């Protein structure tokens, strides 16, 4: 077209970014890549091809890692780890800083390579992925520098196995590697087979930074290589990807003692209230669901619009969609690029073909005839029961329904198995700040969407996984407490045949929903003192009792909305009432366990109640320093309902040490009392009943832990399970927890000194809370 013709049409034309340098880099490697193990590239072996999804062109041939190669990588990481950790925070900070600088120096090469490999628009790779990856290294250089001062009681986990997805290849690498290295860990990382190239370029950068050999190891291959990493000699697995694979990893690592963080799928709600800036909310959807072709775990994929503005909103949205430019990802003026792979395109197409609900609008925009492209799509008029409203599509498809009231918006938003992120649009600060805490997600964006930064933790609740990446809260996932744990001693109940100690028969029942209830099964067992005297009977709880306890806990959810001050008052009251009966409790503890330590245990239990009464209104959230005009509020919210397998030892103190932090933070608990010494717990029921603890906040079960542990961990309406019981329960709990991917905290058969500093502290508070980051940009 001539200039004078364009003068009339005013078309954009094309603005292609050159791929020459990126192609030259691939060529320099002979378009064949091995792994990066122990500081050097291995010889390319048998493997698979990596294609450009926009064109189908072959980019390179990659190597499928063998068992021996995965083992070699894990060994190299293991060998390098002690020296890397011993380098100290400042020493590691220098390397992380160098990595950040090198990412910056090669930023365009990384961006173009990412676009070639992944199909995302060059604008996004250039302006979002690569700068954020750099930011993570800069930020965590700082965390390395500060570790000794800020986290004096924490040390590295060791070797971390890290498995990352294809939607943000380099960015996810940065999210995984930067915090791991900062805290003194070494890593074995696997990118997906579809997008490994920027990870391999990153390996070169590690060489350029002079990073010690073995600190970063990168192996390529498909999911089976991932399985090999999960099974390898590593101390932690960090996974980002699909919920089904995450579930498999949870089950596979159960009982292994490996730490685990999972960042999984989502179906994030995007809520628009009738007082929103409608045009801005429409534009926000471009960043929510048409960013990276909608292949974003936190994509605002479920649009919920308040009824009064729904028609207007949809009309504006359709008009906006028709303006999206879909096509060559290397074109700087493209909004939506290529779907990652024909397999994913097929998945999206099949999901859409199977849908006959609602009305679909396909963006009236040109779609390339070849390559993996899918038109931006809006489906309105859906109901929560429709498959498209529930299933993660992971493509440029937005589904929608309407709501009437703020309460209904919350109800619809939370009507999902996932809980990663949510977006709220309203010009009313009262409304927005009321809704944000009610959303069951790890992230809430107010009047904005898809904002991410190294300073604010990213991660979800429910089946979106657990753990946070970024911020102070993300460091827990890459550290452990200093010190060496001792194996747990097995404790069994005493047997006897003496006469009852009490003159009148006493029946210890279960404590469910504020009532003492008989066990569903109708069975009890005798409890004998060390002396052999019969000191009582306890009920044997079964799965139905557990079910009832969960229902009671659900009914007591108002507890999470109470003030920290009120919860503190109740914890002090518990301490007061326990103190009033200290002698009786001490005697009981001595009778059950033998010895004379009962009085000391009661005293420590009272102190512990005081400790968490103190924390109840002081475990503050944070305001993260994210680079926007606005704030990211890191709010500490209760996990929900927590099931606790209480330690067999320290039958009173152990139980209190778990119960107190949990309820102080606003959780409801179901306590499975010490199996051999259950009477301290059943006696404690009377203290609970006299201390204004609302019904259902604390529920106590007795009987064999094994009878309830598995059901507790599998129960879909329990949000977290802690196991401090016998060693084998750890594996059972972790394995069964895969059902709804609830958070677990298990002892892995190691002992904890309940009377010492191990028995209280930040670990308990962290386990009792979830960090929710609420992003609030502002501007007059």
């Amino acid at each position, binding site marked *: 077209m001539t200039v004078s013709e364009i003068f009339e049409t005013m078309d*954009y034309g094309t603005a292609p970014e050159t791929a020459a340098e990126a192609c030259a880099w691939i060529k320099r490697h002979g378009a064949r890549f091995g792994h990066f193990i122990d500081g050097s590239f291995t010889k390319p072996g048998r493997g698979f091809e990596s294609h450009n999804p926009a064109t189908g062109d072959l980019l390179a041939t990659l190597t499928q890692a063998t068992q021996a190669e995965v083992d070699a990588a894990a060994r190299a990481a293991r060998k390098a780890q002690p020296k890397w950790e011993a380098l100290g925070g400042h020493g590691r900070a220098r390397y992380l800083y160098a990595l950040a600088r090198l990412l910056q120096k090669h930023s365009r090469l990384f961006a173009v390579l990412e676009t070639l490999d992944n199909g995302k628009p060059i604008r996004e790779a250039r302006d979002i992925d690569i700068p954020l990856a750099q930011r993570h290294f800069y930020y965590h250089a700082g965390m390395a520098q500060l570790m000794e001062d800020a986290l004096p009681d924490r040390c590295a986990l060791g070797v971390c196995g890290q498995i990352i997805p294809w939607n943000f290849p380099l960015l996810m690498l940065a999210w995984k590697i930067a915090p791991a290295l900062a805290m003194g860990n070494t890593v074995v990382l696997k990118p997906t087979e579809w997008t490994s190239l920027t990870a391999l370029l990153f390996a070169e950068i590690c060489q350029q930074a002079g990073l010690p050999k073995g600190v970063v190891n990168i192996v390529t291959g498909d999911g089976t290589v991932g399985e090999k990493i999960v099974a390898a000699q590593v101390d932690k697995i960090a996974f980002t990807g699909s919920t089904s694979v995450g579930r498999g990893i949870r089950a596979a690592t159960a009982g292994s003692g490996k730490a685990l963080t999972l960042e999984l799928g989502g179906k994030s709600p995007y809520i628009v209230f009738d007082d*929103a800036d409608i045009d801005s909310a429409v*534009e926000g959807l471009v960043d929510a669901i048409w960013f990276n072709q909608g292949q974003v775990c936190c994509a605002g994929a479920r649009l919920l619009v308040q009824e009064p503005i729904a028609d207007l909103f949809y009309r504006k949205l359709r008009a906006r969609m028709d303006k999206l430019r879909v096509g060559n990802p290397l074109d700087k*003026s493209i909004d939506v690029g290529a779907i990652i792979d024909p397999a994913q395109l097929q998945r999206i197409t099949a999901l859409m073909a199977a849908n006959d609900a609602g009305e679909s609008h396909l963006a009236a925009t040109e779609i390339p005839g070849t390559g993996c492209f899918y038109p931006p799509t809006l489906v309105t008029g859906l109901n929560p029961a429709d498959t498209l409203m529930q299933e993660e599509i992971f493509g440029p498809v937005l589904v929608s329904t309407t709501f009437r009231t703020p309460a209904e918006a919350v109800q619809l938003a939370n009507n999902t198995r996932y809980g990663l992120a949510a977006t709220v649009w309203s010009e009313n600060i009262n409304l927005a700040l009321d809704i944000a805490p009610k959303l069951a997600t790890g992230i809430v964006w107010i009047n904005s969407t898809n904002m991410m930064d190294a300073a604010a933790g990213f991660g979800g609740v429910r089946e979106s996984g657990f753990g946070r990446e970024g911020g102070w809260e993300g460091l827990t996932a890459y550290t452990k407490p200093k010190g060496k744990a001792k194996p747990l001693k097995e404790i069994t109940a005493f047997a006897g045949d003496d006469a009852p100690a009490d003159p009148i028969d006493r029946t210890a029942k279960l404590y469910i929903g504020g009532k003492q209830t008989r066990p569903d099964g109708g069975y009890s067992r005798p409890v004998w003192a060390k002396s052999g005297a019969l000191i009582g009977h306890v009920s044997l709880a079964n799965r139905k009792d557990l079910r009832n306890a969960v229902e009671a806990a659900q009914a007591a959810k108002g507890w999470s909305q109470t003030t920290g001050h009120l919860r503190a008052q109740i914890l002090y009251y518990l301490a007061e009432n326990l103190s009033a009966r200290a002698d009786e409790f001490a005697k009981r503890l001595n009778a059950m366990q033998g010895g004379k330590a009962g009085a000391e245990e009661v005293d420590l239990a009272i102190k512990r109640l005081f400790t968490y009464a103190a924390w109840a209104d002081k475990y503050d959230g944070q305001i993260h320093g994210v680079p926007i*005009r606005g704030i990211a509020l890191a709010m500490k919210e209760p996990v929900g309902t927590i099931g606790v397998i209480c330690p067999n030892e320290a039958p009173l103190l152990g139980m209190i040490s778990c119960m107190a932090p949990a309820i102080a933070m606003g959780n409801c608990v179901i306590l499975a009392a010490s199996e051999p010494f259950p009477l301290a717990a059943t006696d404690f029921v009377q203290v609970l009943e006299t201390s204004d603890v609302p019904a259902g906040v604390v529920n106590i079960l007795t009987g064999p832990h094994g009878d309830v542990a598995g059901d507790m961990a599998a129960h879909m309406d329990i949000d977290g399970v802690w196991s401090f019981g016998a060693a084998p329960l750890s594996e059972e709990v972790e394995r069964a927890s895969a059902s709804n991917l609830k958070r677990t905290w298990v002892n892995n058969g190691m002992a904890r000194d309940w009377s010492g500093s191990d028995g209280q502290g930040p670990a308990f508070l962290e386990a009792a809370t979830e960090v929710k980051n609420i992003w609030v940009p502002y501007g007059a």
Partner: protein
Amino acid sequence: MQTQTKSGPSHTSAPQLPQVTEPRNPGMDLDMNWVMRLQANTSAIERRAASLPARRSVKKSHQAAWLLRAISCIDLTTLSGDDTERRVARLCAKARQPVSADLLRALDMPTLTTGAVCVYHEMIPAALRALQGSGIPVAAVSTGFPAGLSPLHLRIAEIEESVKAGAAEIDIVISRRHVLTGDWQALYDEMRAFRAACGDAHVKAILATGELGNLRNVARASMICMMAGADFIKTSTGKEAVNATLPVTLVMLRAIRDYYDRTGYRVGYKPAGGISKAKDAVTYLALLKEELGDRWLRPDLFRFGASSLLNDIERQLEHHVTGSYSAAYRHATS
């Protein structure tokens, strides 16, 4: 969408007359429900404005064509206390021949003028003389420009004088105080009176957005001026501390879109002050294309109020033709 353009966009490239194919916006009754529902979230608007230039890149021949289009939409302006008739004549000569003839020949655009020339009332006759036969309209700033605080009857009389003197377009300034005190009815009535005084001359309503306090006021003032019959809404006088910006533009364009969706009348947009780079001009055109559509990319619905922008565009055009970066002194001054 109630009415359509009476005829398709003009494909003649010269002269750049305001193409009166659009029915004029007659205005409508003041609808306060609509006005008060308007919202403008500053952070979100700023994000959109910040990401747009990176989302739309216009290169090579397309860039040259877009820059020529930008020239055709410039209200070449001089609004200085020291303006003289000779000074205005020089400006008008530049409006007739904004780019050197050899460059235009190389670009296959033999005829090109700016959209209009914009001057104070006293300079209207000089401008008319200098532009005679060119078809370039003369716009006059009016109503006690730039503060707009002279007596209302004098402001209305000023419009009438300028129209009588031959100005085809009148750039009025609104009373910012009506916005800041929330006296929306007064703003509407004032704009109605200005529109009536303009008669057949087109009226551009200058909101002085830099003095309205926030973007929501910009949205509301935009809507009220359109309801009161503005043909164009314009950001600034060029004399405020902050003049045209992309966020303000976004708010005003969205108001224009809403008004069009509701009434079927297309109202024009004129950012003024602070746009001095060719790249900025392309960004503004892209924002217009995205938010309003191609129909608005013509001088009857879009103008840049600018004085130094043209020179930067000339340098970019010469670069396009020769492949070498250009220098300002190579291009005729205004």
